[in-house]
């Protein structure tokens, strides 16, 4: 460029014209956009998720529209009868047995996969061998497969007509295998990135100070993995306790192998909606408590690490 380009009042330089609604200040317009967007998203969320969940909680206490008035009588009725119905529903022996089964199954499965998850993640991150990529894809398979597919396959593979000469139909073992299958990815994927980010320096330091393999693992690696392991535990637990499709088939009709989800489903088939709502609410509250506990634990450990 030879001539110094003094800014022309240019054909080129004119910025986009400020027509119509663009005259309004940018701050006002972006706030409007934000409010509009938020309302749409919140509206959608409410219709699809929030209102239905509220409906479950309410119906558990018999808050259906088909009751008298809105006055004091309304509240008195619900507080007494509603709560009584709720309590009755969840203390049915069948209900208690179903919830208890779901709880201990989910906790054990989450625990087993927490351990195996670390082992698998370790092999994936630290080990090198041909075909490792195949293993990686395998991890995600249970997550991608629809639950009913898993249910059907496991029924035939481990059930009465099993080619493996075993019969896990209507057994806890069968349920466990199904749950281990579907929760595996959560445990592994929760731990894997943390393992990847460990650069091996602390371990090298421990080794140079004389620590053996296992001791290094327990004292150096594991502490930094704890929050992730707990996170994976929480996710696996949440998935297991709500699981339906993959275990409903192999569970059969036996009361002993009826999980909470299955029990609720059976109630809906009998059109016992209030009952179903009550048990659902109980299950929700229980899982929420356990999740919060896991979360608090994980955060406390994280704080000690940081």
């Amino acid at each position, binding site marked *: *460029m030879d001539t*110094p380009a003094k800014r022309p009042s*240019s054909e080129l330089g004119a910025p*986009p014209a400020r027509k119509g609604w663009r005259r309004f200040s940018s701050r006002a317009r972006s706030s409007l956009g934000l409010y509009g967007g938020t309302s749409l998203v919140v509206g959608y969320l409410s219709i699809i998720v929030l209102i239905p969940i509220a409906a479950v909680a309410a119906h558990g206490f018999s808050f259906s529209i088909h009751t008298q008035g809105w006055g004091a009588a309304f509240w008195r009725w619900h507080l007494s009868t509603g709560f009584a119905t709720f309590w009755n529903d969840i203390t049915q022996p069948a209900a208690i047995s179903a919830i208890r089964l779901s709880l201990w199954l989910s906790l054990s499965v989450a625990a087993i996969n927490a351990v195996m998850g670390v082992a698998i993640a370790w092999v994936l991150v630290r080990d090198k061998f041909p075909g490792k990529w195949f293993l990686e894809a395998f991890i995600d398979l249970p997550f991608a497969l629809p639950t009913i597919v898993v249910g059907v396959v496991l029924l035939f593979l481990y059930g009465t007509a099993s080619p493996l000469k075993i019969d896990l139909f209507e057994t806890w073992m069968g349920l466990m295998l199904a749950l281990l299958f579907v929760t595996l990815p959560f445990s592994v994927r929760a731990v894997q990135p943390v393992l990847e980010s460990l650069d091996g320096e602390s371990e090298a330091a421990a080794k140079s100070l004389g620590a053996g393999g296992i001791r290094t693992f327990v004292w150096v690696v594991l502490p930094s993995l704890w929050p992730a392991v707990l996170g994976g535990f929480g996710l696996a637990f949440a998935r297991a306790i709500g699981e339906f499709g993959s275990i409903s088939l192999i569970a059969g009709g036996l009361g002993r192998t009826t999980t909470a989800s299955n029990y609720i489903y059976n109630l809906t088939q009998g059109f016992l909606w209030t009952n179903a709502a009550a048990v659902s609410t109980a299950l929700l509250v229980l899982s929420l408590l356990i999740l919060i506990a896991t979360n608090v634990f994980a955060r406390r450990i994280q704080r000690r690490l940081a």
Partner: protein
Amino acid sequence: MSISLSHLTKRYGADTVVDDVTVEIPESSLTAVLGPSGSGKSTLLKLIAGLESPDEGRVVIEGDDVTDVDPRYRDIGFCFQHYAPFRHMNVARNIGFGLRVRKQPKDVIDAKVAELIELVRLDGKAKSYPAQLSGGERQRMALARALAIEPRVLLLDEPFGALDALVRTELRQWVKELHRQIKVTTILVTHDQDEAMEVADQLLIMHEGRIEQAGEPTELYERPATDFVHGFLGPTTMFKGVSVRPHDLELVPASEGAIEGTVQSIMELGFEVQVTVALSDGTAPWVQMSRNEFRNLHVEIGSLVSIRERD
């Protein structure tokens, strides 16, 4: 006056990041806004650009009050510290972006882009993607992109902060040369005082959201208005109870006005030598001198010397 800021204030919660800033920026100047991290200089730039909205005050660009105007309509060019390239577009499309927004015909855009690519010396890289360019090249592309729309103000937010020292010095000179050619009002934000001193026509020193001093670089260096400016723009040391520049002191044989002391340490840093002298009153000022000067003195650690101010 090209840019006029009056009582500009910006708060984030309880922090006042830009505190009642009032300043005039002359047309066609290259103004550097210098200050430590957290002094509010980047925020000030973003207020001028419109990427942030002030809580109080007005921004006037060439007579237009743009305080409530969207950055789209302010006719400014902005360069970011990390270049903000459009990663999925090649160099040519990056540079031409603003022109396409203004719905310029294709041949006009192509011509302008080619012109700019030559100007910023990215010849042959028109079809390259930002990921294939070096840091310096990316910043040059960013500059070309900003200049393509022929803005009335060019704002550079720590443009060389992410580059190696060598590239930084190179680009620094190049921007100064570019400004000489294109003469667009430019504001450069930096925390590097060498950069500011070297490049700017006018210097603004910011500290904790306020402007400590504004003026020509040499003026600020020689006649700093506050202790902060004095300390920030160059090295200082205490002599006779006053803060002075180490290169304004010299070591001499005992004479009037000179104070005796013992050489405590000697640091040879390439072209300059720093000699620290311990005085009887407990202070230990250091003197900055050239290598030749040092060699002619024939002193070593423990030698008895005298310090005084140069004439």
